[in-house]
């Protein structure tokens, strides 16, 4: 089989969604066809109102083996969270 076309990753922002969310991928000859295919495939039941497609080969992903180094600090640096700081009640809502 020839011309299986490029793989595009599909991101959709739903009607009440704040951001685009990865929903899957489609094969297409070009970006426009990818949008059309994604529209047919992923929004048949009014799941969204904005679609992004991006060639899968353009995506660089983090390495799971480096997960600890990449994501670890968030957990042991509790001072980054607002709840770490005690504010006297009298000060009111902050």
């Amino acid at each position: 089989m020839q011309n299986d076309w490029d793989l595009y990753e599909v991101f959709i922002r739903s009607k009440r969604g704040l951001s685009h969310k990865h929903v899957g991928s489609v094969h297409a000859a070009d970006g426009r066809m990818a949008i059309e295919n994604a529209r047919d495939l992923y929004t048949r039941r009014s799941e969204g109102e904005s679609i992004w497609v991006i060639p899968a080969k353009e995506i660089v992903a983090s390495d799971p083996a480096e997960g600890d180094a990449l994501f670890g600090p968030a957990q042991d640096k509790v001072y980054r969270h607002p709840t770490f700081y005690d504010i006297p009640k009298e000060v009111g809502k902050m």
Partner: protein
Amino acid sequence: MYTTDLRTAEEKAKAAKDEIKVAEEGMAEFQARIDRDEFIEPKDWMPEGYRKTLIRQMSQHAHSEIVGMHPEGNWVTRAPTLKRKLILIAKIQDEAGHGLYLYSAAETLGVSREELVRQLHAGEAKYSTIFNYPTMNWADVGAVGWLVDGAAITNQIPLCRCSYGPYARAMTRVCKEESFHQRQGYEALLEMMKGTDEQKKMVQDAFDRLFWPALMMFGPPDSDSAHSSQNMAWKIKRFSNDELRQRFVDATIPQAEFLGLKIPEQIKWNEETGHYDFGELDWDEFWDVVKGNGISNDDRMNARNEALEDGAWVREAAAAYAEKQRAKSKAA
């Protein structure tokens, strides 16, 4: 890579031992993640056997969705009312979508869709046995929705918790849509059972022919299932073939009774077990269909191959056009 290995025999033996140790530790760590119910994601390390099994299962699942469009597509032009025709078209569109979700998910394992489709067309990959049965009358379309999609859902709901993340997420989407298919199929049959004697006879005929093949969709009996135990340990499968089959029978027989269908004699409610007994299936027939000798195997494969070959020039045209547009936008 091309240099002479200058290590002593002792060093080489130690290196080989270290390699085995790393592989064993990797395997233990992997199994521990599975046991903790973590999802395995595309870039995570996984045993080669796990990857291979998933590619096999997911691609065959995808192929089933694609080939499954044929028996129903057979009735699009002959659907009895415009409403039923629209519903049928929408359903077949969903099946195409399910095929695409599943191919996408399979591709995260490092295999191309092109290669998977090649395997299907070369007869190297299987698809569900059920689609090698012909749709003989309009009631078959309803029965396919009710029984075939019903069996598929029974199979697929546990797959929403399968250990491989992309597969589990694809199944979540699929299950939402399959539920529409099953309900519309059952409703179509309900409608026919309110109709003439001839319509009722058609429904009974469809049920008699498709019920047993639908039970075979769950695969060979546990005693004869090659991949079962490893797949359960890896949580690719959550329940055995026989467990799921029993679950489907228990759910379906009351639905058949509600329709007013005559239930086959060998199906009996078992007060003790709280399940329906349904006897042995015709496993010779099953293996025969798996091997390509079912009623419609040749028709299905011919239709797929024809579509692939006849469509080649269209795919080439689309690729050439995309290339031209790219060149144009670069020049501009």
